[in-house]
């Protein structure tokens, strides 16, 4: 595996993505809404309650705010690849540019890695930027109101450093598989978007009041590792020259 070849493919895909305004704005809008505006709104709402709530209840509410905000970040990592990966793979189908690409002295693995990185890297980068802004908002508020930093704690680290990349990877791999079955970018995004349903369910559970413990986050991570490995083999099976040219519709 020649990583420089994969990186060439990634760079090319990133150039194409950068020139697509719809994708570029989606890439920015999603973290701003889920990673910045929503936590800021929650902070604003909770701020009004500070004087009314007893201290112990306030701390519970503040922790709930951290869990919810963090899960939104995981949600971003699940949604963004469905936008980018669908362009990366189905976009090549639409432009009919896969055949000349496959004719180059590049292996299937190098191409798959390059195209997967093109979806994975910007999504994770944008999610981390949103995480940094979200953490700053929460900490600026918490240090002035409750006298200590709410984040990062162990759960936050686990969610950002483990859950987020695993979710992002799952979404990218699922989109490779979806890309082999559809011809239309929007269809790819919609089908790829189904991947986020379990994550949305998890976010809903948290929003409805459940505390995500470190243990639960660890268990979720283990499940995601298993799912990622299974999807990796499935996506490799799907992303083979012959399959692409004869079966990708």
């Amino acid at each position, binding site marked *: 595996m020649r990583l420089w*070849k994969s990186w*060439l*493919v990634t760079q*090319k895909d990133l*150039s*194409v993505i950068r*020139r*697509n305004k719809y994708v570029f704005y989606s890439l920015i809008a999603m973290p701003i809404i889920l990673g910045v505006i929503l936590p800021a709104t929650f902070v604003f709402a909770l701020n009004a309650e500070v004087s009314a709530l007893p201290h112990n209840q306030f701390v519970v509410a503040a922790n709930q705010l951290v869990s919810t905000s963090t899960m939104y970040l995981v949600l971003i990592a699940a949604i963004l690849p469905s936008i980018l990966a669908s362009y990366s793979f189905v976009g090549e189908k639409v*432009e*009919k*540019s*896969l*055949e*000349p*690409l*496959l*004719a*180059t*002295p*590049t*292996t299937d693995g190098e191409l798959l890695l390059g195209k997967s990185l093109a979806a994975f890297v910007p999504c994770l980068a944008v999610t981390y930027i949103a995480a940094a802004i979200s953490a700053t908002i929460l900490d600026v508020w918490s240090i002035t109101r409750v006298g200590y930093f709410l984040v990062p704690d162990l759960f936050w680290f686990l969610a950002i450093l483990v859950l987020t990349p695993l979710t992002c990877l799952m979404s990218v791999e699922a989109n490779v598989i979806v890309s082999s079955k559809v011809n239309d970018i929007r269809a790819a995004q919609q089908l790829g978007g189904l991947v986020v349903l379990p994550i949305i369910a998890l976010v809903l559970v948290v929003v409805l009041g459940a505390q995500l413990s470190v243990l639960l986050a660890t268990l979720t991570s283990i499940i995601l590792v298993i799912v990622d490995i299974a999807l990796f083999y499935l996506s490799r099976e799907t992303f083979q*020259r*012959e399959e692409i*040219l*004869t079966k990708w519709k």
Partner: protein
Amino acid sequence: MIDTENLTRKFGNLTAVDNVSLHVEEGEVFGFLGPNGAGKTTTVRMLCCLIGKTSGQASVGGFSVDNEDDCLKIRKIVGFLPENVGLYDSLSAYRNLDFYGKLYEVPDGKRNESIERLLKLLGIWDRREDAVGMFSKGTKQKIAIARALIHEPKVLFLDEPTANLDPEAAKTVRDFILDLKKEKRTIFLNTHNLDEAERLCDRIAILKGKLVAVDSPKNLERSLYNRKTIVHLDSVSDQVLAAVKSIGSIKNVRTSDNKLVLDIDDPERDNPEVVKAIVQAGGNIQYVTELRSTLEEVYLKLIREAKVQ
């Protein structure tokens, strides 16, 4: 440079390419003619290691299509122009070529030189920074050809290079292929266009799943139909007709108005004798022409025969 032995590819119950054996010499322009679904693209894809074969043997530049390591070597020495140009519309012409140059492992300096040389040759250098999406179909096709040549491949596979182009753009592409022919590059040309095949190719294979015929365009034209000599006279008399019919090498004589239409095996050898006989019989010759069967006639006849079989 290209060898296949009973090369076969099946898709389920459908045999797309059936026991194709051929040999293409280095520096040869080899035309692959056949109707839609004849297996032309499938053959090229197998030779470029894009898809596998069901049975038989194939090699390009001495490397076997069976072996994954050899396939990487084949892809290095092969340039491929697919039926759909497949360029990145949002990237510039230069960026498209640069990307492929890097993938083909062309060193930096040489890559820049090649891009400049090719784009200047094709008259696109001044628009090198324009996004490809802004170009006409013909210009895109030229860029795609430049892409196939960026690493100076020994073998060039061109799949319908002038399909969907207007006559002017098609001529530019054909002229460019003629220039490549002068460089002694091996070119494997898939085409529907018989005129194009006749003008560009040293040899032509006619494919309909199976290989129907392989030969030079001239030999193909000669092999299926007799060559005909047409003698225009001021009038065709019985004496002239009798004199011509008495020549043993003439297979068939037909008259049409003031013309004699003669089926002759070897006009270069027999025409002087014909002219002499007509003059001696009192005929007054206005001019002598040759009527050849066209490649189109040969192609249609062979394809019809293949369908019947």
